[in-house]
């Protein structure tokens, strides 16, 4: 577990950081969600958006029911926070600037872009996403110089990563034991 990328410190006015106890307990909740998802035959990724010690977003993949391949847990959770801001008449920018994402798997490139666009300052995640990871594994969207794509964010990576990998492995094993490794091309 280590701190990956230092965001531009000037951009986070007060570089607030949750205590390690807080991180541990929120990640525990994220893992509980991932296990629950697995038990229900869903992709075992747990994800929480925490603002001021309150969970404002709690996402799981909604790709199937929406037929929209971009409805990752993080995107769903971000929309929940936006919905909360709308309901409570709060400025989303102000809220997001002090909201931490806890997620069992490294956000993909798309989700990392979305997190930047909304000014999320900190992401705590479990295992790496070797295929699509946007916080260091494939691209480093979290730290790159992208002046028109929100602000960089800080990552704390590798939290209980073996466990997160095992969850994913057991999901894909149970789902399709004969999944062909080479890519299937149908033209």
């Amino acid at each position, binding site marked *: 577990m280590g701190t990956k990328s230092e965001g531009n410190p000037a951009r986070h006015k007060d570089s607030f950081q949750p205590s390690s106890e807080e991180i541990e307990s929120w990640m525990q909740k994220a893992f509980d969600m991932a296990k629950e998802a697995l038990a229900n*035959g869903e*992709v075992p*990724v747990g994800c929480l958006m925490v603002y001021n010690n309150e969970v404002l977003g709690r996402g799981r*993949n*909604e*790709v*199937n029911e*929406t*037929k*929209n*391949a*971009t*409805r*990752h*847990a993080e*995107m769903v959770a*971000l*929309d929940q926070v*936006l919905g909360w*801001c*709308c309901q409570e008449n709060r400025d*989303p920018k102000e809220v997001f600037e002090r909201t931490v994402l806890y997620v069992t*798997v490294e956000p*993909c*490139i*798309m*989700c*990392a*872009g*979305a997190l930047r*666009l*909304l000014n999320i300052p900190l992401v705590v995640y479990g295992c790496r*996403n*070797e*295929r*699509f*990871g*946007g916080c260091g594994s*494939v*691209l*480093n*969207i979290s730290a*790159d*110089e*992208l*002046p*028109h*794509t929100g602000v960089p964010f800080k990552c704390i990576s590798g939290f209980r990563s073996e466990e997160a990998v095992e969850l*994913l*492995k057991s999901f*894909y094993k149970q*789902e*399709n034991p004969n*999944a*062909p*490794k080479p*890519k*299937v*091309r*149908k033209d």
Partner: protein
Amino acid sequence: MEPQCKRRKASESATASWEVCPVLSDELSQDTALLEAYAAPIVNKKETSRLVKELASVYPLPGLRHLKRVRACKASGSAHPLEAIVVDSRGLGEPFLVRIPACPPLTRPQFEQASRHWPTTFHEDKQGSAAGRARGLGAVGAVVVDPQSERVVATGHDCSRGDRPLCHAVMVCIDLVARGQGGGAYEFDEYAACQSSAPPPQSDGPILPPSGDVLDSGRTQTSSAPYICSGYDLYVTREPCVMCAMALVHSRIGRVFYGTGSVDGALGTNEHSCPDEERALHRALAPPGPPPRTPPSGA
């Protein structure tokens, strides 16, 4: 392979219902194209309405309905008060050449530019991107096309101002494609230009079997995974940002054509930042669909 006649039918009806929303880059971003026309001074102001009426019947201007026939010329210190397009002997002086806008303006900047050449009308709310600009939205438009049937699958514009900041034009289009197939996560009813069409009944839509990658979170349990953009082309006026580019990869888009590049663009422009990572993105983009590419002309 479906019979040729069926396909033609599908594309005809698609043309008819979608003509209204051209959001292709050239049309929206280009400078005003000009045509040459003869204009003449109206020396007697009282003849104006008669002249306009007769000009319209003798010399109708098909395809130039966006133009007003007459312009005032008080600022120029001219001897005559008005000028009209196209000659007529009575009441008109010597014709002279003017340059007039060739096409109706689609965006407000185009309208302002066109009006400097000749008074031009502007119907802002009828066009996708123009409508977006009118609402204070980013002037980015996108169209998803099935190149096989030449059917427009979805059109959308930026909807990111307001309470849905992630609804960039590309994300709007992806969700509209999903909506056209009975899914979708958002409502875009308030935006007339954001529309999708259901796939023709004879087709089940292009669906790929899931690939066997462990961390592909787009994977699902059923064999009919919702990679519903596979085989489709996306046309977007501005190069997609990193979120949108990856969203297109997740959605298995076939090809991406974009108009102008953008500083943070994720499909080619952003070379200055880190060439290594760009290569990595291309790697990520490469499997499992064909790599997104820009058209050779940069259209």
